């Protein structure tokens, strides 16, 4: 109950603040499929899609559906130790205007404690446009996972996942920051099937004058491994 009250308060404060800034709300489904190709190497495919339902920039301020973007990603990862994994990936983004290509490199570090675990993800990516210069981003994400039933997460149990990611981006000489905070309820069906449902709150345009943007996504994600 306390968690629900906190969630409502947070949402309320976002909305109040968002009155002077741009505010977007929408639906954000994602799904990933991972499989081992050898003892050390794993391939992961991921699809994620953003669907806008509300944008404060729309003059009539009514709910209006808009497909924002869909990302198709593929990664190949090598496990360096039980706790460290490196990945290289490619993303094809489908969105209005111009579809883009992105290359991704990341290091993931797993930190375990007695009952929770934390994933550190350090990622850099480069986005290529037809006309515009290359967009370079450096990102760090921290994601914690806590079992909600007992001290260890076992099949059929639920967990809480909380993450925050800070992104620095630079294109030509213009740079900016973005922050992504997410909290979700996870369903651990078994180690090969996980489902997460929650909210993903993103703010950006920190370094752009008079142009701050809030995006709140209702996010659902399925993580499948073979």
């Amino acid at each position: 109950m306390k968690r629900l009250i906190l969630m409502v308060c947070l949402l309320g404060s976002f909305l109040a603040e968002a009155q002077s800034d741009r505010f977007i709300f929408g639906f954000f489904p994602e799904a990933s499929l991972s499989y081992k190709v050898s003892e050390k190497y794993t391939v992961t495919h991921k699809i994620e899609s953003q669907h806008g339902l509300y944008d404060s920039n729309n003059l009539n301020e009514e709910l209006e559906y808009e497909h924002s973007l869909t990302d198709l990603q593929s990664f190949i990862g090598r496990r360096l130790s039980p706790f460290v994994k490196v990945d290289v990936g490619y993303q094809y983004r489908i969105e209005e205007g111009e579809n883009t290509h992105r290359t991704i490199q990341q290091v993931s570090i797993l930190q375990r404690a007695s009952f929770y675990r934390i994933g550190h993800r350090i990622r850099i990516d480069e986005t290529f446009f037809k006309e515009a210069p290359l967009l370079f981003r450096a990102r760090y994400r921290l994601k914690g996972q806590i079992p909600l039933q007992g001290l260890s997460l076992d099949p059929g149990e639920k967990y809480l996942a909380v993450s925050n990611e800070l992104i620095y981006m630079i294109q030509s000489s213009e740079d900016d920051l973005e922050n992504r905070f997410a909290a979700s309820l996870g369903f651990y069906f078994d180690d090969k099937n996980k489902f997460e449902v929650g909210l993903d709150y993103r703010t950006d345009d920190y370094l752009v004058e008079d142009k701050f943007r809030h995006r709140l996504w209702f996010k659902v994600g399925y993580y499948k491994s073979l």
Partner: protein
Amino acid sequence: MIRSITRLLIMLCFSFGFAQEKNEVEKRIEKQEVPQQAKAWLNDAYENKRRTKWYFQTDDEEQVFEAKLKHNKHLHSVEFDLDGNVRNIEVLIDENELDEEVRKVISTYLNTYFSKFSISKIQIQYTGEGDDLEDVIDEDEFEDITVSYEIEFYGKTETEDELWEALFDSEGILIKKRSVNLKATDNLDY
């Protein structure tokens, strides 16, 4: 015929591999679900400690009840069989609390077999009869008690790079070890 033998060999390899792995499942349970005998033993030994959490644990071989509680600033896990008879007590300790002689023997083993290692968890395990185990807690007496050490560590050799759970005897000699299956990290990585 050759194909059948190959298939049999592959199955044997797999079953051998699985037997070496730790696959524990633990569920939180209510106090009412615990055998009366287990609760009575715990009350006697720990003198009515209030904050006890109860779990039901299964692995590939057996089912047990487990009580977790704090005692003298250490986390204690007390294991009971399905009838409520106490089986052992595990006490979580820091590396520097290990007996110096035992620590030396265990360090020698780790240094000999692993090119790289780091210890993540140490538990002293006390095994014995119910009355003797009770004396360990309330009298600090260790008569007829078997002491062993359960240690979780990351260890790398030329061929293996795993998280391990190993049991060492009271002198620090390895009794057995098995690899610990880490859960998939797909939801933390992507």
